[in-house]
């Protein structure tokens, strides 16, 4: 698939001197769901804001379907929909009016049928005459999505769409995102939940300290992120790993008092059951077993360290 959004050497330094984006380059493929993962302050929102025109880039360029977002901003912005992280809505306006306003603002003629279909799709039709102040947090977020979809964008940016919402809403949101993708909309969402990226993304980009550390197909990244360690504390320390266990690539720890087994949770077979029976066969008795998974934070740290 060709890239619908091309970010080249994008740099953003704020007036206070903080460099939020460091020469970011990124291609977003048409029709994909790209999840941008990163801790707070990584530069996710700055990147989205710069693509959408809210923040002015210090240097570098962004093109949306071949239109430069600064020089040819009208054509570029007409193709983009943005759902911000904060719930920003005029409290006393009716839902339907605020959605109609968004459509007009993006240069589209009034189209009540389209507005109705967007509101129905987001289960907001029954609330169309409610003031936004009367809605629940989840509903308000849906209104923001409806506003972003009002002008029929081809690229939709969702900035932390499920931050602070309940599980049901999160699943609803994922369903909505998949439906939009089926309609041909390219979706970029930022999140710091790995499960979210895992659930819906085609590709995952990792961003930290203003740098894109990697962009990878979800499946291959999940294999890397899905590695887990099991620590096997032994009753008696051993001087060397028995030959019969050589296939497990065990590492001795605590001067032979413990063995470390690394395995892949996303693999079809983790090999744990077989390892236990082979340990017994080798005459090793276990005192305790602990498992741990490297957190996303740790992976970020590793990635940053590797990048230096």
């Amino acid at each position, binding site marked *: 698939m060709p890239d619908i959004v091309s970010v080249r050497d994008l740099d953003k330094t*704020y007036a206070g001197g903080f460099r939020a984006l460091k020469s970011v380059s990124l291609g977003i493929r048409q029709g994909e769901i790209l999840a941008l993962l990163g801790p707070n302050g990584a530069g996710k929102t700055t990147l989205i*804001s710069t693509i*959408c*025109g*809210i*923040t*002015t880039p210090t240097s570098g360029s962004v093109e949306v379907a071949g239109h430069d977002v600064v020089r040819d*901003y*009208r*054509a*570029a*912005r*007409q193709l*983009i929909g*943005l759902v*911000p992280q*904060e719930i*920003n*809505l*005029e*409290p*006393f*306006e009716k839902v339907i*009016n605020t959605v*109609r*306003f*968004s*459509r*007009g*603002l*993006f*240069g*589209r*003629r009034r189209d009540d049928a389209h507005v109705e279909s967007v509101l129905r799709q987001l289960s907001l039709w029954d609330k169309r005459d409610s003031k936004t102040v009367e809605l629940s947090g989840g509903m308000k977020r849906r209104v923001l999505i409806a*506003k972003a979809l009002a002008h029929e964008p081809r690229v939709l940016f969702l900035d932390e769409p499920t931050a602070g919402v309940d599980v049901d809403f999160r699943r609803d949101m994922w369903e909505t995102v998949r439906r939009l993708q089926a309609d041909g909309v390219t979706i970029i969402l930022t999140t710091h939940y790995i499960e979210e990226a895992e659930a819906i993304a085609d590709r995952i980009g990792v961003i930290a300290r203003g740098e894109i550390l990697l962009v990878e197909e979800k499946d291959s990244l999940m294999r890397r992120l899905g590695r887990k360690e099991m620590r096997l504390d032994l009753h008696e320390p051993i001087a060397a790993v028995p030959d019969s266990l050589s296939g497990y690539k065990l590492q001795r720890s605590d001067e032979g008092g413990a063995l470390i087994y690394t395995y892949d949770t996303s693999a079809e077979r983790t090999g744990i059951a077989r390892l236990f029976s082979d340990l017994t066969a080798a005459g090793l008795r276990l005192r305790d077993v602990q498992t741990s998974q490297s957190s996303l934070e740790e992976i970020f740290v590793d990635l940053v360290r590797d990048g230096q």
Partner: protein
Amino acid sequence: MNWQAVRAIYVYEMTRFFRTLLQSLISPVISTSLYFVVFGAAIGSRIDQVEGVAYGAFIVPGLIMLTVVTQSISNASFGIYFPKFIGTIYELLSAPVNFLEIVAGYVGAAATKSLVIGLIILGTAFFFVELRILHPVWMLSFLVLTCVSFALLGFIIGIWARNFEQLQLVPLLVVTPLVFLGGSFYSISMLPPAWQTVTLFNPVVYLISGFRWAFFEQADVPVALSLLAILGFMTLCLAAIWWIFRTGWRIRN
């Protein structure tokens, strides 16, 4: 030109006006009526004609200007400050619109609101005083130009303001004194010569004078100068707004 966007902003802003119709209309009409009662009927009855015009009628253009100027500023400044305050400005900044379209929408709506209020006050004046408008087209032109220019100023104030206090600061400390001292309730010729010269530095004098001329053919300064002053002020405001959007001052990071 993205006319759909201009229309969208205009309609959205006017919807707010109609939503708060009572406070938007009733409050300025009541306060102006009080001016008519106090200055026109109570005090005015003791004052002779000013420049050949009955005092009650003489203050009508000034009173309309007073309301229209303050309303234009407060409508436009609130119109653009509110999206900044609640965060909805993100949508405006990410939309395919240029500064002229944003200004046309917000300032157009703010100016329309104050024009409506100005005309209602004019209508109200007929209940209190005997009034003739010698040049109705010029009267309307001055009114529209004033509404637009001061809505532009209000728009700038709305972008400049970082909080509600600042939003009130300029209208309260600068504009209201200028309008009161701009000849709303008196003719400049009634002042001592030295103060007459000082007053000529007050831009509002030119507005009120031109507007009053359209009613009574009586003016403190030549009407062409009034027209030039208001057009110059409008150009200045437009240039400032153009610069604001070009640099993103106080609106874009």
